[in-house]
């Protein structure tokens, strides 16, 4: 088996909490705490969790938009060589930047309103050395066609487009440099239902056409289930479950994953979704609870969960969960 395209090992990102006149560091927000997972080429991994769980921070560490505190981000280059992106300087990162691109959540904030589509989509090309304007125009036209927009739109400004169309423009820009890994941070959560379906279909189609690898950060489980091959669930900076999508949805092994699934309102009035609502709030990653971080909200918590932090264990092949009782609990959500 070839090495995964991206292999994250023991990733940590702590943000210091500074207090007082001299900004003395009084503690750390453990935004990402010992996260490990890998993504195979052509695969879509969903990174799921509530706000503040560290999913976006993890994605930003992989993109090296921020510097990880600790850990490795192993990337297999197109030459087959495995490099660690985590300690690299920005000069060292330059050749890899074009291979790892991002699609943003907000289609209104992520495009420059003063630049035409040609400039918005074409800028990554210019930065990467495509100086010839004619050549760039051809490439932008090709990209716009690829995402289902008309090439004639190239000289218009983003304000002339709807939310769904702008998201297509953002996708075209991410694909401009022919990336291998695309990190999509909540790419459809700002869109209307009917538009959301169009964009999801586009992502699936582009993936099979261009053999793209996706890291899909999202909070909407029904979207994640639809698009991802595997799912990683995060809670307070830690990975609590990692498994193939079908396995997670047919039999989640962590009570938090099951609670997340039950919280999704079912679009059918005959299915009641009132029971099993998770109580309480997500603890702060600056002062997480003892033992298992989830124990104060967990209905299955026992004395052991308060004392002892569970390790991520492989319950069935390829299905990992961070729970003392992962093997025993029957958490299937009907």
């Amino acid at each position: 088996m070839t090495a995964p395209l991206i292999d994250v090992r023991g990733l940590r990102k702590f943000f210091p909490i500074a207090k007082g006149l001299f900004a003395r560091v009084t503690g750390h927000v453990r935004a990402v705490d010992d996260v490990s997972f890998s993504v195979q080429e052509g695969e879509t991994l969903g990174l799921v969790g509530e706000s503040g769980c560290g999913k976006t921070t993890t994605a930003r560490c992989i993109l090296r938009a921020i510097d990880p505190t600790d850990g490795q981000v192993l990337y297999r280059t197109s030459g087959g060589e495995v490099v660690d992106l985590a300690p690299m300087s920005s000069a060292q990162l330059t050749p890899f930047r074009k291979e790892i691109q991002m699609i943003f959540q907000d289609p209104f904030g992520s495009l420059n309103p003063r630049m035409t589509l040609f400039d918005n989509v074409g800028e990554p090309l210019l930065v990467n050395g495509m100086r010839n304007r004619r050549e760039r125009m051809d490439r932008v036209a090709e990209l716009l066609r690829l995402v289902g927009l008309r090439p004639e739109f190239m000289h218009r400004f983003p304000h002339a487009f709807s939310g769904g169309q702008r998201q297509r423009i953002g996708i075209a820009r991410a694909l401009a440099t022919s990336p291998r890994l695309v990190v999509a941070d909540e790419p459809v959560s700002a869109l209307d239902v009917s538009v959301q379906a169009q964009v999801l279909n586009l992502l699936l189609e582009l993936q099979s056409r261009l053999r793209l690898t996706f890291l899909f950060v999202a909070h909407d489980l029904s979207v994640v289930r639809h698009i991802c091959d595997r799912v990683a669930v995060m809670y307070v900076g830690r990975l609590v479950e990692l498994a193939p999508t079908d396995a997670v949805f047919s039999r989640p092994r962590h009570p938090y994953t099951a609670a997340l699934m039950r919280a999704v309102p079912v679009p059918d009035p005959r299915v009641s979704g009132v029971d099993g609502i998770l109580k309480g709030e997500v603890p702060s990653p600056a002062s997480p609870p003892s033992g298992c971080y989830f124990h104060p909200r967990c209905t299955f918590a026992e004395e052991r969960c308060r004392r002892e932090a569970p390790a991520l264990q492989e319950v069935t092949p390829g299905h990992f969960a961070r729970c003392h009782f992962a093997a025993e609990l029957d958490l299937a959500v009907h």
Partner: protein
Amino acid sequence: MTHNAEPLLRVRDLRVSFQLDEGTVRAVDGISFDVFPRQVVGIAGESGCGKSVTMRAVLQLIDPPGRITAGEIIFRQDGRPVDLARVSPRSRQMRDLRGAQIALIPQEPMAAFSPVHTVGAQIVEAIMLHERLGRAEARARTVELFRDVGISMAEQRIDAYSWQLSGGLRQRAMIAMALSCRPRLLIADEPTTAIDVTTQAQVLGLLRELQQKYDTAIIFITHDLGVIAQMANYVVVMYLGRVMEEGPVDEIFHAPKHPYTRALLRSIPSLQTETRTALPVIAGTLPHPFNRPPGCPFHPRCEDIRRGSCDAAVPALHALGPRRAVSCFLHSDATEPA
């Protein structure tokens, strides 16, 4: 459910338009629906369908250049019908109604609370404005409301500023504020869109519970059909400022009549649909508000279009039963008077 009672709110042929330099936007173009006491009416629709503008019209909160151009908004105030469309937005009568009889839970509680006053002070102010209560009594009621909405350490939390509270607590405080004067109608405008799923489940459960306890009618505006299915008794589906279809929640989800409703229901990925396959989509895009299509607003994207009728005349909202109506030529030839 039978509804022999008079409706609490009766909206008839409401029209709201915005006069802009580029042209006129008909944001709400002749919509009608009823809200009965103790009922939860869900208004479903995508951005730009006019659902929020309709609710702002009910509260007389339409800012210029917007204007209610036609229609009736009959609200039963102490058994007496009042047409809110005829009441001046700044009048004493409207100010007495807003917040007291009809309350609003806005989408963004962060923007709705003042950051320089404590949340408690803002709720106390609302209570004292509408009711003859002293400060101490108003404060006592606020503490009680905080307990009702499930905020722990209520006595301390009412002295917190909105930015000190988490998203879920802030939305709970907003609900406490909306309920502070025991309104008869609560308008919830996408109240859970900005919060996480688990918190959303808590807030929805809370709203259901409080609705029973306070006997309030709720108009629930959302684009999330899952939320509609779980919350509403009755559903109004809107598209480009018009009602496409309305009816009891079970019929909307299990026997939708309008092609738009059907297409919308098909396009949502759920925890049941087949994975990694193309989702059925609604072809085309929402037209620009300045270029409303002639005829039925949905016809350019409709699968069941009938050339010659759908693109020529606007179908009227036709009653199929006492609490069921649809505006589509597949079901009735009735047209909207030009």
